[in-house]
């Protein structure tokens, strides 16, 4: 799944920029200041070559007036025409160019992710050249951790080197590595161009921004939980595919499936081969419960370790088929059957913050009819010394990070 946000540069529509028209009070200071520092619309600044051109035009203009020489006036006119045409062509260059940011989740702290900017030239005849896009990644704000300064935010200027022909698209990639879990924001700060002659740097503000969840970074931990866990009654079924005896579901036949697993009656009904899937059975399954009382997790680094540890443990247990339920603070314990359940939990973990003890409740099961107490083989977490985190199974140490 891709998240995409799109913006098209067209003077008649500014996507994402909803402005409410209000009565404007006329002030000379606004006018003058607006000339110095224009607020809206494209911002045009002179490049060094543009400054040379302007200085040249100024000097030639002075000489032309001083000498009343039409040759100098012709030269002045040509220089000014180049500047004017440069501005017009720059506007044409931006016109009809659309861009969208494509992000492919999941993003995980400390892991590379691909941020793709897809450009489309919707003009019918003219190509576009030499655009650049300033992307900035704004790291999430996490409790207790210092906010990343604006100057230290990861930035990337993506250049369009090739000609973007009419009706064509091109993709520009940025390999980005998020440093923190949480709601990572990507902003397209501006789009600029030196087209066509490099005299003027034209940049336009962009309203393109997007937030995406970054899962916690995986952490190294030591697992000691086998001894402390209580075995489950045999034949316990879980709502996921496994090697148990109870029928869980039917699925299409795939090469490599045993012929004995074919459900002939259902296959005859559906006119296609279907095979049986049985539910999983396990002897040791765990309920993972992450509590984040602010009174307990006073150290931000230790809290981040807790989150990463919990995420890593949840993934590993899920992969081993030994994760039964997941719960966070006072939320209900949700059974884990599919990857989507785990992802939802990781999404919650990505944005979890320490909360006061009084706001936390006890974990509750939404499936009390399964015959197993929700607190059986309960994995919970406590601080382990000033920096470490320990995972407990029913109060006994099972893993440390």
């Amino acid at each position: 799944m891709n998240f995409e946000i799109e913006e098209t540069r067209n003077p008649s529509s500014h996507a994402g920029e909803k402005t409410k028209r209000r009565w404007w009070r006329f002030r000379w200071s606004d006018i003058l200041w607006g000339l110095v520092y224009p607020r809206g619309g494209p911002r045009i600044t002179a490049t060094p070559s543009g400054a040379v051109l302007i200085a040249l035009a100024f000097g030639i203009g002075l000489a032309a007036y001083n000498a009343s020489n039409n040759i100098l006036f012709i030269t002045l006119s040509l220089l000014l025409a180049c500047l004017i045409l440069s501005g017009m062509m720059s506007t044409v260059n931006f016109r009809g160019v659309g861009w969208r940011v494509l992000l492919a989740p999941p993003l995980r702290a400390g892991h590379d992710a691909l941020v793709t900017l897809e450009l489309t030239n919707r003009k019918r005849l003219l190509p576009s050249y030499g655009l650049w896009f300033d992307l900035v990644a704004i790291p999430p704000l996490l409790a207790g951790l210092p906010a990343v300064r604006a100057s230290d935010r990861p930035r990337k200027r993506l250049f369009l080197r090739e000609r973007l022909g009419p009706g064509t698209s091109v993709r520009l990639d940025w390999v980005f590595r998020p440093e923190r879990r949480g709601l990572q924001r990507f902003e397209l700060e501006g789009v600029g161009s030196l087209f066509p002659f490099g005299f003027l740097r034209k940049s336009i503000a962009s309203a393109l921004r997007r937030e995406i969840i970054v899962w916690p970074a995986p952490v190294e931990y030591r697992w000691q939980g086998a001894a402390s866990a209580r075995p489950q009654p045999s034949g316990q079924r879980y709502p996921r595919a496994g090697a148990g005896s109870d029928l869980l579901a039917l699925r299409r036949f795939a090469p490599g499936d045993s012929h004995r697993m074919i459900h002939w009656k259902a296959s005859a009904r559906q006119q296609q081969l279907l095979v049986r899937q049985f539910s999983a059975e396990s002897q040791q399954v765990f309920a993972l419960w992450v509590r984040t009382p602010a009174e307990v997790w006073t150290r931000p680094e230790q809290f981040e370790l807790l989150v990463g540890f919990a995420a890593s443990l949840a993934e590993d247990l899920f992969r081993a088929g030994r994760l039964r339920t997941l719960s966070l603070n006072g939320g209900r314990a949700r059974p884990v059957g599919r990857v989507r359940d785990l992802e939802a939990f990781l999404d919650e973990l990505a944005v979890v913050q320490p909360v006061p003890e009084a706001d936390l409740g006890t974990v509750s099961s939404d499936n009390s009819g399964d015959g197993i107490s929700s607190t059986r083989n309960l994995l919970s977490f406590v601080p382990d010394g000033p920096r470490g985190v320990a995972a407990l199974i029913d109060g006994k140490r099972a893993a440390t990070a």
Partner: protein
Amino acid sequence: MASARPQLSLDELRQLKWLLGGLLAVQAIWTVLYLELDTWTLLIPATVAVAAAIVWPRIPSLIPAALHTLAFPIILVVFLGDLWLNGQLLPAMIRLDVLLIVYRCMSYRARRDDLQLIVLGLFLIVVAGVVTVSLVFALQILAFTGCALAFLFIITLVDAAEAKHPAPRTPLFTWGGAAETPGWIERADWGRLVLRLRAAADWRLLALGAFLFGGVVVVSGLLFLAIPRFDLGGSFFLERYLTRQARVGFSESIRFGEVTDIISDNSRALSVEITDDDGEPAVEGVPAVPYFRMVVLDEYRDGTFSMSPRLRNQVNRARRNTFVLQGTERERGDPLVFWTFYFEPGISRFLPIPGSYIGLRFQGMQNVSDPVDLQLVALENEPVSMVAYQLRNVSVSLRVEDNPLGRRRPDLRPPPPPGGRPPLNEEAYLRLPGLGDSDHAALERAITELTGGLTLEEAGRLDPMDFAGRVGQWLADRHTYSLQSALPTGPGDPVVRWIGGTSPGHCELFAGALVVLARKAGFHARAIAGFRGGTWNAFTGNLTVRNDNAHAWCEIWDRDEAWVRVDPTPGTTDEAATGTVLARNYDNSWAARLDSLRILWYRRVVNFNENTQRDVVRSVRDAARESGERMRALLDGLEARIKAWVSQPWTTRRTAGVATGAAALALAFWAWRVWGDKLRWGGGRGSSRRADPVRAEAGRWLSRFATLSAAGTLPPEGALGELTRLRYAAPGSWPKPERVFREARELWRLLRRSR
């Protein structure tokens, strides 16, 4: 979706940049050619060096790095030496500029160096244009602009690309070894680049380039017209940094043969437009072969005519800074006729004047002198660029008043004495210094012969014009006209020797002979140098005078108040003297077309000033007013016709006709509403997606709704779905297009109203 057309790689863009930079440099360097600064010694090696660097871009890497480092100091030393030796700033700066351009082409350029190359080239072209005011400048600046814009465009693309792959920077100061060769030079292959350019070229790109260039030209033209002009009274500032000797030489001193040298030069000397107040040609009454006086030479010695010191003082004393001169003619209420002169540089500081005039106006401020009794106009220095000036109501006449101010008040002028009145500075016009006794004797013999045996005293009592006529006839009988004349060898004065012989001669010899013989007989006489005749342009009606129209003649004093022109050269019919009307020599060759273009350039561009600008604004305003009045008259006429039609009696037949017409119109409108869409969308479902009008219309509606979505108004999904189906789906699955478009139209109105 990828672009099918190949694109140039970064290396190819760098190679193209190198190529364009070289072309730009060659173009700039060659402007020196028409600056005429004797820079051939620099021009040829510079061109060869730049051309070699273009073709073999590896050359800069062969130059030792130390030389690259020392290049600028060396060039600076050369400049200072040039300045010290020649003492002329502008030529030295031009040569410095050429050297810097060559150096920039002999080294691998960074962005800053590329910009420097453009500025250096622009400097050369602008200076050449300012100095020469030539039409070539217009062509050159346009070509340079086109090339420079393409160059800057490539630089922008290369910069954008190098932001991804920055080129390694070469160290600023390196002493050992050769300069490093960039990779793109190693891979340079011009033949392949041309093929790649051809493959990558797109008609849209070429059209864009052409549009851009055309836009630059049009916008600059409009700006040129619109930039407000006002005269600050400044003079041409580059003149003081550049001096130039006359190429052909009409100066205060002319030796025999110098005018003939001028004649051997076929280049253009001046163009004259004779127009009325409305700018229309007004050549009636103008001789087909006019004389243009430039220099008055009153002193003769040993084959050289010159201005006497007294005359020079007279010329220099009258000098002042002005752009308007008062002439000797008086306002008589005649229609205005303007003679506009475009006098080329390199000929003389004395301006060609065809006769007496009411007023003279220069394009800009000039340091000028105009001794009225000599009917001369002289600039302080020889102009380095074209000089434009305009004479008002010229009186073309044989006579030049010696005391024009006296003519204005004839009542104050006493009657002439019985023997006639001498001219001002009379003794200067009678002197024959340097002639020996044998020369005087030879002249006396000649005078006796040509007057039919009269003594000197008797000959001196003849009418001056009669005497001049006899001399002219006598000379024509003995000598033929030829540019290839050879003076007889022997002792004595060369003119006297020529008079005594029968060898052919040119205009100077005929004029010199007349002056010498007249002075010997006691007539005041002087030699005049200038131009005679020219060719009339068949397209613009202006007169083009070339250097081969240079001529020498003389003026003889009429013993009362004026100098009278006498042209003793055989075959030169003086219309004013003989009353003959010659046919104009019209030129309709390609040279004349080019000349008319040049006149247009001078008139419309070079001479454009605040007055012309005011005229342009006035003509635009008049045109707008005229078209407005025409439109109003049209509407008034229409209104009157409608009123007349309505006020006619409404008979039954007429009423029925009108009602039928209205009904037919209503029916047609209704039919269009009902079946119009069907007619429009019913056919033409071709295979081409773009050509299909249904798809195109659906695309337009989708774009419209997209703008509404962007503004926060969301159209229903269903309507968009059907439009999307029409836009993209197979025609077999389409809903009725006319219904979908009708609904879309209604929905559009509804949403617009709701906003």
